[in-house]
C-alpha cells in the first residue's frame, strides 16, 4: 500500500500526515510535488492542510490549478481514494470533487481547539474501522471551515449517507451549541457520490498518538490500510 502526500507551495501539514503513516503505522508513504503528473503508483492520495498559495484569492482557489490536480481529478474518477484535510478539503471543493463551499467561520476568527465528531457513515474506505455513531476527539485549526451548501445538496448528502462527520458533544449530541464554526448541519466532513473522496476540516493526523491527547484520528488511516 503506497500513500502519496501532495505538497503545494504553502502546504504545512504534509510532514504530519507523512509522520503518522510512516512512523506510527509503518506504512509506505511518499511526498508528491504539486507539479507531478503521474499518480498511478499510489493506492491513496492525501491533500494535507496548510495555506496553499497563501490562501490568496480564496482558500484552495489557486492550488486547484496546480498540474497535479488534473491528475487527482482523474484518479478520483477512477475510484482512487483521496483524502483532503482542512486546506485539502478546501482544494477538493474548488476542484469540484466535492459539493458546497467552506466560508469564513461564523465567529470571523481562526479557531484552533479540540472538537468532538460524531461518525456519520461507516460505509466507506475511510471510516470502516469506526462504529456507527462513535464520537471522536480531534483538533480543528482553520479560518474558513464553515461548510455551506444549498438545501438540495444538503438533502442529497443526507439521503445518500455522505456525511462523514458532524460536530457534536462528547456524548454525540449534534446541536448548534457544539458547532464551532457555523457549518450547515454541523458538517465536519463529507464524501463524494462514490465515497472514494473524503474532505474534512478536523485534523485526524493531529490525533494519532497518545502524547497528543487523542488517537481517534488513526481510524481513518487504518481504514485506508485495510483496503489492501
Amino acid at each position, binding site marked *: 500500500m503506497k500513500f502519496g502526500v501532495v505538497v503545494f507551495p504553502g502546504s*504545512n501539514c504534509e510532514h504530519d500526515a507523512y509522520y503518522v503513516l510512516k512512523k506510527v503505522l509503518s506504512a509506505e508513504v511518499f511526498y508528491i510535488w504539486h507539479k507531478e503528473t503521474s499518480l498511478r503508483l499510489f493506492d491513496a492520495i492525501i491533500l494535507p492542510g496548510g*495555506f496553499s498559495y*497563501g490562501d490568496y484569492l480564496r482558500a484552495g482557489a489557486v492550488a486547484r490549478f496546480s498540474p497535479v490536480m488534473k491528475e487527482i481529478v482523474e484518479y478520483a474518477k477512477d475510484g482512487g481514494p483521496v483524502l483532503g484535510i482542512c486546506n485539502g478539503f478546501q482544494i477538493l471543493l474548488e476542484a469540484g470533487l466535492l459539493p458546497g463551499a467552506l466560508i469564513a467561520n461564523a465567529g470571523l*476568527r*481562526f479557531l*484552533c481547539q479540540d472538537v468532538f465528531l460524531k461518525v456519520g457513515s461507516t460505509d466507506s474506505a475511510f471510516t470502516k474501522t469506526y462504529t456507527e455513531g462513535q464520537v471522536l476527539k480531534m483538533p480543528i485549526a482553520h479560518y474558513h471551515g464553515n461548510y455551506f451548501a444549498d438545501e438540495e445538496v444538503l438533502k442529497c448528502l443526507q439521503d445518500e449517507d455522505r456525511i462523514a462527520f458532524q460536530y457534536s458533544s462528547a456524548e454525540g449530541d449534534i446541536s448548534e451549541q457544539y458547532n464551532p464554526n457555523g457549518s450547515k448541519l454541523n458538517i465536519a466532513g463529507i464524501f463524494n457520490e462514490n465515497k472514494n473522496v473524503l474532505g474534512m476540516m478536523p*485534523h485526524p493526523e493531529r490525533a494519532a498518538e497518545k*502524547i*497528543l491527547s487523542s488517537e481517534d484520528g488513526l481510524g481513518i488511516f487504518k481504514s485506508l490500510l485495510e483496503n489492501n
Partner: protein
Amino acid sequence: MKNNKEPEVNLELAIQHGLNEEEWLKILDILGRKPNYTELGVFSVMWSEHCSYKNSIAMIKTLPRSGSRLLVGAGEENAGLVDIGDGLAIAFKIESHNHPSALEPFQGAATGVGGILRDVFTMGARPIASLNSLRFGPLSVPRNRYLFDEVVKGIAHYGNCMGVPTVGGEVYFDECYTGNPLVNAMTIGLVKHDRVTSAISKGVGNTVMIVGSSTGRDGIHGATFASVELSEESEEKRSSVQVGDPFTEKLLLEATLELARKNYLIGIQDMGAAGIACSSSEMSAKGESGMILNLNKVPMREPDMTPYEIMLSESQERMLVVIRRGFEKEVKKIFEKWDLNCVEIGEVTSSASLELFMNGKKVGALPAWDLVLGGGAPVYERETKKPAYIKTVRSKNLKNIPEPNDYNAALLKVISVPSIADKSWIYHQYDHTVRTNTAVPPGGSAAVIRIKGTKKAIASATDGNGRYTYLNPRRGGAIAVAESARNVVCTGAKPIAITNCLNFGNPYDPEIYYQFKEAILGMGEACRVFNTPVTGGNVSFYNESPKGAIYPTPVVGMVGLIEDVNHITTSYFKNDGDFIVMLGTLKGELGGSEYLKVTHNLVAGDAPAIDLPFEKRVHNACLESIRNGIVNSAIDISDGGLAVALAEACIGNPEKSLGASVYISRKLRDDEIFFGESQSVIILSISEHSLLKMEQIAAKNIVPCFTIGRVKDNGRLKLNESVDLSLDDIKSAYENTIPEIMKLAL
C-alpha cells in the same frame, strides 16, 4: 522620483537621521571625508539603537553568556544555539516589535513574528514553536481593544500560515502600556549539529546573492523609527511599518533549509532591520572581508529606487546568501523550485569594505567593521539615578489596607481581571497543534513540545512582571528569570537557557537607565544561580508615549529540557482524594500584587522577596519528585497568588473540573495568604501513598513541604473558612471575561 536630487550631507542632515554630533565626527574620522547621502543613511541605521545596541551592549555583556550546552553564544549569530543531545540543538530568540505594532498592529505584530522566524531558520533550524509576550493598556479603552484584537490576529495570520505552532505566551493589561503596547515574539527552532549555518561572508571571489522577495520602499528607516519615542507625529511614520507575506516566507523557509544542507553554502543572513545594509556589513565584518554590491541587480518592486532606498529598505522575506563561486546555478535551482527570486548581486573581496555600485557607477564605500555592533559602532554607558518614585511607592504601609468582607467576591474579582483571566480567546486563534508535537498546549504553566525521534521534549515559557520591576528593578529582573524557570520546572523540565527582551523607556533619562541597569543585574544574578545562560535577545528602548514611560518590562523566554516524555507534567488536579502539597513558604507579600491593584487600586510596596538559592532548591525538589513519578500535577504561585493557582488547578482539566479543600493555619491575614505573590512556591497534587517519599525529597533538598489540603470531586473550592465557591462560578468568571469584552471589538 526621477532626477531625485540627493540632499546635501552635513551635520544637520545627520541629526535628522538620528545621529548626534559626536557620532557625525566619528563618521568623518572613519571615512576621512564627508559621507555621501547613501553612506550617511547606512551609518544612521547601523548606529541606531536598534542595530547597534549602543546604549545597552555594555550592560548586556554583564549577563552570563556561556555554559556547557551553548554551541553558539549570545551575539555570535542571529540566535543562540543550545545542545540538547542526540546530535540535536535548538536555536531560539525573542524580539520586540513594539513601535510598529503601536501604529499598525496587524502588520506590526505579523512582521514581528516573521522576523523572529527568519532569525531562527537562517541558522538552518526548522522552527518548531513560537511564543509571545504582550502588553496593552486597559481593555476598557476602545483603542486598546483594537490594538489587542489586531495584534492577536496579526500573530495568528503569520504564524498559522507558516505552519509553526504558537504554543504559549503571556499578556498583561495596565495603564502604563496605553499608547505603547509591547509585542515580543519568540521562536524555537530545531537543527542537527552538522546542519547549522552561519551569518558569515568570506572567501575572496565568492558570490553574493539576494533571495526571496523583491525590494520595495517599505520600511525605510524602520530601525531608526524604533529608536525614538512614540509621539503625536508617529502616525506619519506608518510607512516605516513593513508589510508581511507569510506565504513567501514559508517558501523561503523551505528553500533555505534545502540550501542549508549544501556544502557550497558559505553564509546566510536574513534581512530584518536595516535590510541589505545590515546583512552585508554584519556578514562581512564577521568574515573579516569586503563585498562588492551591484545594487541595480537587486530585484525591485518599484521603479527608480535610489541606492539609499535599496540599502535601507526593510522589505520582508529576503535573505543575503554567500556561496562558493561556481555554484550559482545550483542555488538558483533550489529557489526557482519555490518560485522565489535568486539573483547574484556581488562578490566577496579582500578589501574589508562594502563597495556599492549602481549601473557600474560607484555610489558608496563603507568599512564593514566600523558599521557594526562589536566593531566600530558607538558604545555608551549612560548615567543612572535612582528614581524618586521608588521611595514613595515602597513606603506605603500595606498592613493598614482594609481586609475584604467577602472573600468569595474578592477571589471572583481577582480571577476575572483580564491579566489573570483565561486566555483561550487568544490561543484558540493561534494554530498550536500543527507539526503534531504539542504535548502540553497553551493554558498551563509552560508549553511542552516533544522532539520526534527522541524521548525528549522542550518546555518553554515567557515571563516578565513590569509592576515588580517598577517597584524594585533588581528583584523584577531576577523574578522574571525565576518565574520562567519555575514554570518550565512545573512541567518536568530542567531550565537550560534563556533569551530576553528588555523593554524600557528612553535610556538618556538617568532614572530609566537605573531601571535598566538594575533589572539586568537582577537577571544576571538569577541566571548564574539557575545555570541558564542568556543566548541572545533584544533591547527595546524608547517605549514611551506622550503620557510617559512604560513600566520597565524585562521579558524572559525560558527553555527547559525534559529528558523523558513520560515525565511531562500538567498543572491541573487529576484525582479525587489526592493530597495538595506546597513546596516553599507563603510570606503574605501583597506588594506589587494583582490583588492590591484590583481591589485597592494600589501599585505599592516592594516586589516579593526572592532568595535565588532557595528557589533553585525548590526547583530541584519539584523535579526530583516528578522524576520519581509521584507528582500528579504541579503549578506555581504567581500573579493572583495561592487562590488563583488553586482555582486554575481545579478548573484546568479539560475533561473534568475537580474541587479542593485547603486549610492554611493563620499567622497572616487571609488576603495575604490567598493573594500574596510569594516567590519560590509550587503546589503539587500527589496520592496518599507518595506523601512520605515527597517529604523525604523535600527534606533532602532543604525545602519546606506542607500538606495543605485534598483534591475533592465535589465541584467546590474551599479555602480556610473564607472562600467557598462552586467551580462553575469560578469557571464562568475566569472564562467569560476576555470573550465578553472583545465582543465589543468587532
